[in-house]
């Protein structure tokens, strides 16, 4: 699942190289939303502190 943002951004770069600006921005937005969703999952992970 963590690979999905990278796939999305890679697709975005490939699309912009091919001249598809709208598709590139759409893929960027989808991948960024995926990144933030994964951040929400991992940001609340339990922190094991040892004092």
């Amino acid at each position, binding site marked *: 699942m*963590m690979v999905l943002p990278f796939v999305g951004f*890679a697709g975005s770069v490939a699309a912009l190289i091919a001249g598809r600006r709208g598709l590139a921005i759409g893929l960027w937005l989808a991948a960024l939303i995926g990144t933030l969703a994964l951040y929400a999952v991992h940001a609340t992970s339990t922190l094991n502190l040892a004092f």
Partner: protein
Amino acid sequence: MTLLHARTLNALGLLGCCAILLVAFGCQFALGELPCPLCLLQRAAFAASGVGFALNVRFGPRPSHDGIAILSAIAGAAVAARQVALHIVPGTGGYGATLFGLHFYTLALIAFVALIGAVGVLLLIADRVRPEPLVGRGAGTFGTACLVLFLGVVVANAVSTAAECGTGLCPDDPTRYEALDAWLGR
């Protein structure tokens, strides 16, 4: 400033994103340290910021492209700040190796803030960009080389992440390439 100058500056910004991702990649293999989930998300945010620069290189500078770079850097800074906060309590230690005395997530936070500042400067001078008839719509040789390098770096990160985490969520404290080992039956 001409359109060619603006594209060159954005290509340099794109090279900066590539350099950051390559240094992280190099340390991953040279030191054998696997990136944690938050580290991977920061890498993804650098890739996202690079998309903004890449759009400027390919299609010419536009405020919407700079907005993409800024929004991505804000997301990356939030992730990096969260990881700094996880280790800010004295005695909890840090995660991974250091570079110039700072952990990578601290350096990432500094880099994201610097990136936002750099895009701000680009926006300031973008008003003065004048069209140059000799420059076509393409990215030019240097720009195209930067775009291809950036694509290669992002794809390499995707492959590395797939080898480490597979199709599921990454372990909080990764010690081996779990998916790769599973695929190879090790």
